[in-house]
Each structure stands twice: as structure tokens, then as C-alpha cells.
């Protein structure tokens, strides 16, 4: 299967490992990630106001490009995934936003929400299958106790993101099991890391970091995994007691493709 891949700005700069390991693992697992040409930044946050159109257009362009290639749109960063999937939902459910976006973009073929947006984790679960993934593991991550950190963007709003049960998810825990490690279930796993507040109010984010790290430690975690560069940044500050990794790095380690 070939996907139209939307890397997003941070995966080209501060989060290159998230991207690189994902590509290396896809090659081993038998699917292709073809980067969308001339993709533009998603904006990082979904614009909730109904009168915001310009801020949604980069998502619509990427979605229309995937449609033109007859492919699903693949994401890796939680924020890109959240923004693009919510904008796609607007196009499908809000005729006003749909017609204004199309009027603005003047595409040869109008875009009406046809593209399916899938996250890399969903490809592992639904296309590769965790059973098959387990068979492909060369170095099982034995003895590691891993806390999956979902944060907010992968799961919510649940009705739109539809990746997993937003209050009791298991997709990353199932991944951890497939890699031979032990998942740690802890209460803060789907609560926000403090997000973009870290520029304006780092003290507030430090409180979030402590709360999340304490929660994971209390349940015995050695490390976090995440799909979000901003969660990585916020959880990974000097005062953090639990190290954070991108899930693709552990995947690459288990598959034996990490140098």
C-alpha cells in the first residue's frame, strides 16, 4: 500500500527522528510513504471558529492532493493528524466551510471530503496488524515498562478522531505489547501536557509535567512514548524524571532497523 504522507514542519527540523524511524520501519513492514509535494504547515492547532477559512486551506490542499493520487493521507505528528482530520470533518459536515474553501482554492476537481486520514499508529494496527508486527520483531523490548502518552490531540474530539476509545485507549498499549514490552496504564495518559502554553507560561506547564510524570512513575513506568513533538518537548525538560521517546524510535529498535 502506498500512502500520501504529510510530515509537517516539526518533523523536518526538531523531530527528525520521529520521521526517519517511521520511514525505515515502513520499508521493513511493506508500506510506502510518498511525501506530498509542496505541502504547507497545518498550523499546529485546529481553528475552531466557524468563520476561519484561510487557516484551514493548507489542510484542504493536502487532502485534495491525496485524493488526486487516489490514496489515503498518512500523518505521524499528533497535531498534524488532529488538524487535518478535523478540517476534513468540517468539509464533510459544514457546507458553508466546504463551499468557501473550494471557492477560494479553485481546484480543477472540487474537494468534498473524499480522502481518508490515517495516523501511522492506525496503519500499524489496521493494515500491518499487531499480530504480524509481533512476528517482524527481531529485538523484543523485554523487561521495559512503557507508559504510552496520548495527550489530547490523538484522541479528541473522539467522535471526529475515531482512533480509539478517547477515555480508555489501547492502540499504543497494544503496540507496546507487540514489541515485547509491558504497557503501563496510568490515569494521566490522555490528559494534556500543557501544549502551547509553554511559551507564555512555562510554570503552568511544569506543573502539568510533574503531574503526568508522577502518575506514570506511581504505576511503575521506566519511560514514555509519544507521537507528538510538543508533548516530547514539554515532558522532556531538565526536571523530568521519566525519559520520553518517539514511538517510532522504539519500533525501529524492536524491528532491528535502528543503527
Amino acid at each position, binding site marked *: 500500500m502506498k500512502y500520501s504522507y504529510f510530515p*509537517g*514542519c*516539526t518533523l523536518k*527540523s*526538531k*523531530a527528525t527522528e520521529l520521521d526517519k524511524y517511521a520511514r525505515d520501519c515502513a520499508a521493513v513492514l511493506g508500506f510506502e510513504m510518498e511525501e506530498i509535494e509542496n505541502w504547507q*504547515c497545518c*498550523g*499546529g*492547532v*485546529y*481553528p*475552531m*471558529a*466557524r*468563520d476561519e477559512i484561510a*487557516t484551514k486551506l493548507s489542510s484542504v490542499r493536502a487532502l485534495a492532493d491525496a485524493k488526486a493520487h487516489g490514496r489515503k493521507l498518512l500523518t505521524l*505528528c499528533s*497535531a498534524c493528524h488532529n488538524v487535518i482530520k478535523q478540517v476534513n470533518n468540517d468539509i464533510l459536515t459544514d457546507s458553508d466551510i466546504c463551499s468557501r474553501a473550494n471557492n477560494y482554492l479553485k481546484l480543477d476537481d472540487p474537494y468534498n471530503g473524499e480522502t481518508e486520514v490515517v495516523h501511522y499508529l492506525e496503519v500499524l494496527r489496521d493494515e500491518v496488524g499487531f499480530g504480524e508486527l509481533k512476528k517482524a520483531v527481531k529485538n523484543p523490548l523485554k523487561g521495559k515498562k512503557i507508559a504510552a502518552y496520548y*495527550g*489530547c490531540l490523538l484522541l*479528541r*474530539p*473522539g467522535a471526529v478522531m475515531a482512533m480509539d476509545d*478517547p*477515555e480508555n485507549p489501547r492502540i499504543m498499549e497494544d503496540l507496546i505489547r507487540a514489541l515485547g514490552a509491558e504497557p503501563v496504564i496510568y490515569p494521566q495518559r490522555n*490528559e*494534556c501536557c*500543557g*501544549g*502551547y*502554553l*509553554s*511559551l*507564555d*507560561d512555562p510554570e*503552568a506547564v511544569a*506543573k*502539568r509535567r510533574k503531574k503526568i510524570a508522577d502518575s506514570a512513575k506511581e504505576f511503575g513506568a521506566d519511560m514514555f512514548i509519544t507521537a507528538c*513533538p*510538543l508533548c*516530547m*518537548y514539554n515532558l*522532556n525538560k531538565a526536571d523530568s524524571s521519566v525519559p520520553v521517546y518517539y514511538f517510532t524510535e522504539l519500533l525501529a529498535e524492536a524491528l532491528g532497523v535502528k543503527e
Partner: protein
Amino acid sequence: MDKREEILLISGVDPKKCMRCGKCSATCPSYDEMEYHPHQFVYMVETGNIEPLLESKSLYKCLSCFACIERCPRDVEPAKLVEAVRLCAIRQKGANHIKAEDVPELVDEDTPQQLLMSVFRKYSK
């Protein structure tokens, strides 16, 4: 159009659906940072008491984490109201909460682009 109407229109929220259970505020990870909490936004917009909200730092403490949207039993979507009130504030001339010249001293070598993009989308027009 008055402020209340504008906020209702751009948020798409119907505050009358709220039954004042307070669940949105109870689940809000930024509760301690806020002067007005999500359920108060709903009530104050409904009653047209908007000026204090427009002036409040609470506008910049919401994380857009969608927890209140997910967990409200009445599907009120409080975060959309917070966003609409914030837009009313920052869409005025010279009202940006963060300006480009503020940024250099706030970043460090690990600051992800995603953070800067998000901040500009949320705090300035």
C-alpha cells in the same frame, strides 16, 4: 452585531444547553491557572457578561485540549466559546497577546516549530 451574538455565531455554541454541572471545569487541566473557568465562560456569555472575559488572562490559559468538549454531558463544547471570546479580543487592532519580537527570548534550542506555529495561531491575528 453585539459581542454576544458575534461570539455565538463564530463559536456555533448554544449556551442554553448547559445544565451547569461543572464537569467541564472539573476536568480542565488549566483550571488552576484560570480566573474564569470553562463553565463560567458558558454562563457569562449566555447572560451577556462579556467584558470581564475579554479582559481576562483566562483567555490565554486554555490549552485547546478538547477535554471539556469530550466530557460535557450536554455537548455544549465550552472550548469553542473560549476560542471565540479570545478571537474577539485579539482581532482588535494592536491586541495581539504575543508579538514576533517577544519570541527570541522565549525560545530555547529545543523549541519545536509546532509550538511557535500554535502560539501565533492562538494568540495573534
